Each structure stands twice: as C-alpha cells, then as structure tokens.
C-alpha cells in the first residue's frame, strides 16, 4: 500500500489540476468540433493539426488581451467574482474518487461510545484509510455528496457577485435569473440523489460505487432519478436549454457582459470545470463510477488497478460530456417562466413521488427491480398526464398594460431629439 502523505497529496492535487485544466481547454475545442459536426461545418482547423492547438491559442489570447474594468463597476467584487466561480468549481473535484485502491471503511459509530473510544476507533479505521493512497484528494470524506452539493450552491455567488458588481441591467437580470434557477434546480437535484443514498447508506462517493459494484448500477434501478439528476445538472451548469443567465439574444452576455480577457476566461474555466465535475458525479452516483462488469478487478496491482479504474471513469465521463455538447447544439432555450415551471411543477413533484417509491421499496425490502418498474411507470404516467391534461404553453400577455397615454417622443424615456 502506498502511503498517503503531504507529498502524495500535493502530487495528486497537481496531477488533477494539470489534467483538468487542459481538459477544459480541449472541452472548448470539442464543443466547437461537435457543433461543427452537427452543423455541417469544419470547425477550427487552423492552429495545429486538426486545430488541436486551438485551446493553447485561446488561452494565450485570454492572457494577452487587455482586461478592461469599466469605471462604474464595484472593483473588488468585480474581480472577485471570476475567482470565486473558478475556485469553487475546482474544489469540487477534491472528493471525486478517480480509482480507489481499497474499499472505504464503514463510518464510525458515535452513539453510546466514549469520545476517546471514537477517536481511537477513527484512528484505526478512517485514519488508516486516509493515510493510504486511494486515488482521491480527500480520502474517507464521509459527507462527499454533501460537499459537492454545498460547493455547487456556492457557485451561484460567483454569478451573483459578477452580475451585481457590473452595475449593468443586463448583468443584473442575468445573475438574478441564475440565482433563481440554481436554487430551484438544487431541489430536484438533491431529491433525486436521496433515493440513491437510501440504498447505499453512505454519503461517501467511494461507498456509493462499492454498493453499485455489488448490486448493480443505480441507473438500472432508478432511471427516473437519473433523468431528473441529469436535467437538474444541466440547469446548474447554465447549459442549453437552461442557459438563460447568459442568453445571448436576450441579455447580451448576462452576467458576463462586462467581462473580458482573463476575467472572462476564468468564468469560462469555472463553467466548463463545473461540467466536468457534474459529469463525474453522474458517472459516480448513477453509472457505477469506475466499475465496469468486473473488468476493474482483473488488474490486481493497486497502481495499475487505479489507472484502469481511472480510465473507465474518464471514458464514462467523456460520454456525458459529449451528451452535454450534443444537447446544446440541438435544442433551443426555455423562457424563464417555463424554466421555473419545469422545476416546480414537473421535476419536484416527480422527484418527491420517486423518493416515496424508494422509501416503500426499502421499507418492505422489495426487489430492486420493482423500483425500476415504478421509476419507468412514473415517467410514463407523467407523460400520459401531460398529454391528456396538459394545457399547452401559457404565453398570453401577463401584465396589465399601462393605459395612460404614452409620453410623446422626446420626453421621459430618453429618446433622441429631446
């Protein structure tokens, strides 16, 4: 077993960042290549063979461009916002189990035990686990899923700060939309994972993978939860069809309007890192993480085993990233009230019902496949309900229109010619 000391920690952190940062760069290239493929174009092909050096050129451009700071902005928060956005997105990678070398120990029981005994027991089990290399930056973190969600909700701060400090109506509207959107979609996101947690009995991501390794992937038993999770995650990442905070045709750039150069680059980096993190989360929570039909057990050497697991994980993640790109270039975006309607009228009731189904199955120790049937059934029932009783879009004008005579041109509204 490899000891996990400070030096290893630093190497792993450096390794993860060194891998993720270029991945973000190449994700932007992939986005452009996929969009070109979808749209019958060639895509970037000037810099390097097949445009492979394009991310370098883009990165260089971000560094070399002048960073304009408009005079009307709140300088501190204006500069803080991109940093917050990027840092939070990167920190969430700390709990991702890239490829464990040993199963995590069970949580330490604390009730009815002397505090000293707890400490001792912790040192024996968790401590030992934390001291060995497990292909994760923070090993043995029993609240792994919660940490990811907590950091995910913090990400809204970057957006809010950026939008507010820009002192621009478009930015402010964008950031307000974003905060409402992220808060709304946190609920179905959390709710769909609760079903998973009820089965696995642990918040530890490594523990969730271990459960799936033994019993089968969660996507088999809770397909609806996975669907809800995926949709919520798209909203969390501000990706189409949920990219309202930066809806170009409505709000110019949303909260990004006033940003340029590296500040903008950091926002972009944060956004794409968020995509990677959430794809990893989808893989780990619903698609068995690094497990693949026992393939990962063929390699017994711990180091090579970790490498194989890491490759499996990365392949699955890559699939979800590709899905992200494909969805973006296929469907248009929602309007804000439709977005909220989807969260509150469709996804939250569905996730509650699904959670209820999970509880019933757990309570009466039914087969997991019963849950699969319920999950699919709920989805179909929702579809049938929508077709049978749906009223269509509510697009009627929403507001009483001012009946007073409009001011003549040149007065009041800042029209030229006054």
């Amino acid at each position, binding site marked *: 077993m490899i000891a996990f000391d400070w030096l290893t920690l630093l190497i792993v952190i450096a390794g993860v960042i060194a891998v993720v940062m270029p991945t973000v760069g190449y994700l932007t290239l992939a986005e452009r290549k996929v*969009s070109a493929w979808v749209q*019958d174009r060639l895509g970037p092909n000037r810099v390097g063979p097949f445009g492979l050096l394009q991310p370098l050129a883009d990165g260089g451009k971000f560094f070399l461009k002048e960073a304009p700071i408009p005079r009307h902005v709140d300088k501190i928060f204006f500069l803080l916002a991109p940093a917050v956005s990027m840092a939070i997105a990167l920190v969430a990678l700390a709990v991702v189990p890239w490829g464990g070398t040993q199963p995590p120990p069970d949580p330490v029981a604390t009730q009815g035990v002397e505090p000293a005994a707890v400490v001792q027991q912790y040192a024996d089990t968790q401590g030992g686990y934390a001291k060995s290399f497990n292909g994760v930056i923070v090993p043995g973190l029993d609240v792994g899923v919660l940490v990811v969600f907590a950091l995910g909700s913090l990400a809204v701060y970057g957006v809010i700060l950026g939008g507010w400090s820009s002192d621009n109506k478009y930015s402010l509207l964008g950031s307000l939309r974003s905060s409402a959107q992220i808060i709304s979609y946190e609920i179905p996101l959390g709710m769909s994972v609760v079903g998973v947690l009820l089965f696995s009995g642990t918040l530890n991501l490594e523990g969730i993978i271990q459960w799936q390794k033994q019993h089968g992937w969660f996507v088999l038993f809770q397909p609806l939860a996975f669907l809800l999770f995926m949709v919520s995650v798209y909203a969390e990442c501000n990706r189409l069809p949920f990219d309202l905070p930066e809806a*170009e*045709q409505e709000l110019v750039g949303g909260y990004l309007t006033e940003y340029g150069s590296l500040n903008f680059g950091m926002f972009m980096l944060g956004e794409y890192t968020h995509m990677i993190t959430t794809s990893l989360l989808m893989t780990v929570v619903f698609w068995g993480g690094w497990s693949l039909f026992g393939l990962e057990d063929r390699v017994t050497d711990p180091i090579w085993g970790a490498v194989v697991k890491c490759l499996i994980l990365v392949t699955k993640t890559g699939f979800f990233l590709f899905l992200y790109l494909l969805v973006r270039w296929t469907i248009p975006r929602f309007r804000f009230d439709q977005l909220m309607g989807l969260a509150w009228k469709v996804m939250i009731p569905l996730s509650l019902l699904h959670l209820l189904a999970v509880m019933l199955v757990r309570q009466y120790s039914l087969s997991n496949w019963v849950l699969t049937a319920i999950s699919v059934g709920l989805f179909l029932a929702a579809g049938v309900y929508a077709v049978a009783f749906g009223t269509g879009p509510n*697009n009627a004008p929403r507001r009483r229109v001012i009946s007073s005579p409009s001011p003549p041109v040149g007065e009041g509204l800042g029209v030229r010619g006054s």
Partner: protein
Amino acid sequence: MPLDLLDPPADTSTDSEYLYTLNFGPQHPATHTTLRLILTLDGETIVKAQPDIGYLHSGFEKLGEDLDYNQYVTVVDRMNYISPLANEIAWMTAVEKLLGLEITPRCKYLRTILAELARISDHLLAVGASALDLGGLTAFLYAFNEREGIYDIIESASGQRFHPSYVRVGGMMNDITDDVVDKVRAFVPKFQKAHADIARLLNRNKIFLDRIQGVGVLSREEAINRSVTGPVARASGVVRDLRKDEPYLAYPDLQDSFKVVASKGGDCLARYLVRMGEMAESMKIIAAAVENIPSGPVNVDVEGKISIPDKTATYRSIEGLIQHFELFMWNRRWETPVNEVYGANETANGELGFYVVADGSGKPWRARTRPPSFIHFSLFPMLMEGHQISDVPAVLGSLNIIAAELDR
C-alpha cells in the same frame, strides 16, 4: 437651526415607481441590425416597448433623386440586403410601369426565378434567425448552407454574390448561361432536403413550439388596419398575395404551380409555419419556371431606346451605334413621361412598392419606398406588451425587421 417639518409626500406609488427602462439595442445580438427598442419593464415583463429607428439612416430615397433609373438599382440592393434581387425587380416594376415598357418573356421568367430564389433566401434567414434567437444555432446554419447555394446561383448569373445589381430597365445586365439553369435544377432537390431537415429539427420541438406559440398575436382586423402585408399578414389570416391577386412578371403563366400559404394563428408559430410553407411553394414555382424559360432576347428591342445594344448591334447597325452613344452620354440618355406611378411586388417580407415621380428628366424627382419592414416594425409595441423580455427576440425574428429598409 430649527428643523423644517415637511408634510409626508403624497402616495404616488404608481407604475412608474418600480418600472425601469432597458435599452434594447442599437447594438444588441438579437437586433440583427441596428435597431433600438426602449423597453419599460416590470421585472422581466414588458409594459411598454417603444421602437426608435434611425440608426442606419443612409438617405437612400434622397440618393434616388440624384441617380438615374439604372444607377439607383445599386442603392435599392442595399435596402434589403437579405434578398437584394427582389428589391431590384420591384424597383424595375415601378420604373417599367412609368415608361410603359413591356419586357421580353425570357426576361420575365428569369426575373421570376430570381425573385423566388430571393424569397427563399429571405425566408431561410428569417426562419433560421427565429430559431437562433431562441438558442437553436443549428437550424440557422442549416439555413445558411442553402443560402450559400442561392448565392452561388446569383453569382454565376450576375458575377456578384451579395449585391448583384443585375436588373436593368428593360431587361437584365446580361443573359444567363446554361450553367445557371443547371445550378437551379441541382438546387431544387438539395434545398428540399435541407427544408425537411429544418422542419424535422424545429416543427415538433417542444421547447421551440412552447416559446413561439401564442406569442405576439396579431389579429386579422389589426393586420388589415395597419396595412400589414406578406407572410405576417397571411399568418393572421389575410389571404393576400400580389402574385395571385395582381400577377406580374411570369406569374400569370405559373398560377397553377403554387398556392398561397396562410394561417389563422397570427402568432409567431403561424408566421414561422407560413414562411416554411412559402419556401416549399416557391420551390415549386422555380421548378416549373426553370423548365419553361422561353428563348429569345433578354433585353427589350433596340428600337425602344432603353437598353444598351449588344456589341453586334453597336458595330453593325447605325441605330445600334446611335443608341449606344446616346445612352452613354450623360446628358442624352432617355426621356421619361411626366407622371407618377406606384409599382409593387410581393417580396419575401411583404408588399415592397416604389412610388416614382418623374419630371421628364433622366432621374426620378422622387423615389419613395414602401418598405414592408417599416410597417411591420410599427406593430412591435402592440405585439410585445405584457410579454417577457425573452419574447422580444422571438417576435423580432418572426417579423423579420430589416433596419436598412426602416431608415432608407
């Protein structure tokens, strides 16, 4: 110093207390050209939308008074840069009506095909842009692929891709080659495939439909009252199409090959569907016309003293030589009757008319344009009230406002 005690201000918390103004444009991604909208908002809901035009004013009509009837073609091109050929042909309709000129059958067919290509090109952009404004870039680029094909045809006909300046009084700049006919023939099936692609991508897309259904509803009465024309009017149930009602060019021969597409919806979805339908109908016109192009000269006879005679006529006949000479002397040229005419065509956006006042000289005394966009843009405040900011691009895209036409 004693404090001045003031009465509390009267409660004037009206709408104006919490409404705010948002400048939408003139530089904005959704106003594809330089439009400005002054939106009064309550949250994200639009209370009042006030269009402000004039950011692209180029004095086109004034220029028309200083250029002769052929020279003004280049300027007319720039009024609607989405479908310039349709503008040229509409301008010539007015001019030839003024001169009482009957163009050759071949020229009629060529102009019809080119006008229909321009209509398709315009509708492709409008449909693509309405998808783009809702976040669907892919349909936009599918549309632009086909626009490239149309540009190729126009280029091989006129030598220019974007602003061809191809039409002349009494004919065309030059006759087309067989190459153009082949390209048009090849374009028909290719376009139908792309048309089906766009329809498959958008027609049943739940998000797309939810965004445009019931947004910006224009009633039939309102459409008539505000003299709305073109696809916008037809989407509101006003079945008027100059190609059917007052056929011009080769349309009398082609009446059987197309139908007028109309809808009762009046919303953005209806306008989108009408445009999609019109493209299919235009394709039928082109397919029918391209097989029936009559032979013969493309320009009117030399005797008309209108069009420039070709080389043979210039060098081999005295009439040709004299006419060539006269047309190229800036103070000779042709004379026009002293008259006022209005000539209009059904272009992609609606009825594009030109009101020409001639004073007998070689230049129009007044060259007034009736641009469809100008009239459609005046609808915008009415269509927008009570909707959301997000609906602004949807409605703007469905009206297909061309700013150069507003501020001509």
